[in-house]
């Protein structure tokens, strides 16, 4: 449930909002639908991880990954796939931490 909420909202917001909107979405959704610390973290992590992967690929596939290849060289990475992985991990980490924070705040409020 939490995963799907964050996933759908971040995907929609991804086209119009700054990147840190993902953090706000994950936080609020976890306040609303968080159940356990681990569940909250992994839902946030997984959802943003996937959304960022999808959004990046939507641009990079029709580009034949030309740009991703050049940027990978710039950052001394052996292949653009690592760049995608780092992008997704950063998004995931932000999503996960935000959702975890949201859940912990929810627990405070629930008292």
């Amino acid at each position, binding site marked *: 449930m939490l995963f799907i909420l964050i996933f759908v909202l971040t995907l929609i917001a991804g086209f119009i909002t700054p990147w840190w909107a993902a953090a706000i979405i994950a936080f609020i959704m976890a306040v609303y639908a968080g159940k356990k610390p681990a569940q909250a973290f992994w839902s946030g992590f997984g959802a943003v991880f996937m959304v960022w992967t999808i959004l990046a690929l939507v641009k990079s596939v029709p580009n034949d990954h030309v740009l991703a290849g*050049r940027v990978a060289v710039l950052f001394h990475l052996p292949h653009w796939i690592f760049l995608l992985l780092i992008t997704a991990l950063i998004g995931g980490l932000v999503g996960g931490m935000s959702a975890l924070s949201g859940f912990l705040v929810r627990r405070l409020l629930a008292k």
Partner: protein
Amino acid sequence: MKFFKALLAVVATLALIWSLETKFGDLPPIAVFLNPATGFWQNADSKHIIKKLDLKLKGLQRKVIIRYDENRIPHIFAQNDHDLYFAQGYVTVADRLWQMDIQTRSAAGRLAEIIGPKALQADEYHRRMGMVYGAENSLRAIMKDERMKVMINAYTAGINAYIRQLWKRDYPIEFKLLDYEPEDWKPINCVLLMKLMDETLAGHSDAAAMTNVLHKFGPNVTNDLFPDRTMHEEPIIPAGTKWDFKALPLPKPAADLIASMAAPVRHKAKVEGIGSNNWVIAGKKTVSGYPILANDPHLNLTFPSIWYQMQLSAPGINTYGVTIPGAPCVVIGYNNHISWGETNVDADVLDFYRIKFKDDSHNTYWYNNQWHKTIKRIEHIAVRGQAPVNDTVIYTHQGPVAYENAAKRPKAYNDIPVGSAVRWIAHDQTDDLLTFYLLNRANNYDDYRKALSYYTAPAQNFIFASADKDIAMTVNGRFPLKFKDQGKYILDGSDPANDWQGWVPAAQNPAAKNPARGYLSSANQSPTDASYPYYINWSFGPYERGKRINERLAAMQNATVDSMRALQTDTYSISARDVLPTMIGYLDSGKLDKNQRQALAILTSWNKRFDANETGATIFNAWWLKFYGMIWNDEFDNSSLMLPSRDRTEQLLLKEPGSKWFDNIRTPLNETCADIVNHSFIASVNELVHAHGKPGKNWRWGYVKLTYINHLANLPGFGAENIIAGGTGSVINALVDQHGPSWRMVVQMGPKVQGYGIFPGGESGNPGSIYYDDMLKTWESGKLKPLLFLQSPAEKSERIKSTLTLTGN
């Protein structure tokens, strides 16, 4: 406890977000750069193009149709001048925004604003040389001409119409990497780009290094080793051409030469290969019966590509060629009636004047036997992450004092003499864009000459051909009226006789039209023979490229476009032909080891071409450099001195083998020419063996010399590395390291003009676009593309891939 856990999690999350949003050192803020919504992924342009797009743009007067061909070269059709230049600005910036931003910032001395303190010295240098001062002067002059005012304002409006509708995600990737935002374009930016051309092509002076030579060796040696005319000559204007004008009297030379300097100066040599070729062959020597014109300007090659190709069409104008991103008009190109191109002249239009100040306040200086007041101009330089810097620059009547003393001068600029004022053509009110505006619309020879009369700098050899079968060359620019050798050394700034004393009339610039020999060419060499009455400079580019071009053009009959294309990529070395037989003649083969004998055998059978697969070229190149170094490095033993030219060194070898310069003063022996030839051969072959193993495949020229194209910001992965290609600085295909032909163009004149051209790179400045380097391979292989020159927006062509229609609202 729960509260602390929650607090800890929230704080940690916020800290994480902050650290991903913040710039550390040279790295961009990580999440800002990587996130797929606004970060670099958004710059990955789709390979699928939109076939038809209609846009409404405020400021446009009528409808403009832009048709893009298979290389995404825009063909603009407008209904008036205003809309034409508005659209030129719009389509150019859509492809080249960051390049335009960074180049104008660099020229304006505003890099520190985005890069921080490490760019401060470069910024101060540009301000202190008077780049901004010159641009402000020129802009005032340009805006007095109604045509130029309309053009520059419309061009600016077109650029801003694009910039203002951008979202953050649309910013070119370099903005995201350097973490800054585009700003509005201003009319002065167009002029700053022209000043940048002045800096590249007319911003060099050997005067300081020559003054050091004079100080060390005295006038006799200096005149002998640094003569005003070379042994080998092949002037641009055919020798013997009669000057059909009455020359102005030359100013009287000043009394004294300055023979010392206030602080040491390191000599920065000119790069061989920053030069260019152009030529034209008359109809009587071509298959079609009409002239063919060719031009390949050589520059420091960078990505995004230096040039931007386009067609500009409106009532009264239909022209095709290359433009400078950030400046209106076509710079090198053709229309239905004429074609034109340029190579650099290298006139002496930058002089240093030693200034005597009354005291350290620099408020007054000595001139014409009295004290005069200086003017102080304060340059405000914003610095990222620091307080802004206010830099005070002292101006005399000559120009800015680049560095008052050695303490003010950073090490990176220690080729600039201190305590000296700069008199530079780039400071003057110039209106060079008017020349291109008129050339774009020219119909014949008279129009061409009229257009050229407005041109100031950087002086260019303007080649010309017309459908009327005229061919012409004009060595063109605004040349100061000088006494002989004025500015060869640092000048005494207190003597009025050393000032520039007026100008050579434009109509008296060296020129030739329809010569009997049926061709004209230029390759940066000496413009005229000794009969030309005015002094332009004492040294020019070496003669070899010009010689080779003229020999080939003289031999050609029934020339075609392909003969011109082949000549542009010719790698035959006149220099090797001039000196190799003599050098080999001096070699004592009995003293050579196996590798050296093998190298000699390769050299003896070498075809004298600097092709990629020639090993002889590698050996000759290494040998010559070693030979040259062994002659001069003992006496010219420090970096402050100008070195004698290749031509003067060849003269020693060919005509003065007994010269004392062959002796190595560091040994007790008395070396002769033969000794140096032998020593240098052995040493250079040994070095090649050390670096590449035994003579063989690894010695091939294309693999030994490096050829590459860097991104403007030297970003790894954004350039093109390891280009295997032939060529060297002294052959027509002057391609070596990062220097070479930035645009190759051949135009067949006739009832229906047909142009051919290619440049290394592509139309897009976006490293994430397939149009970033789609023309590179064709350029590398030495081929040209037929250029699409439409006569109307509706003309059918299979090469048109998409159409953009702009309308006002």
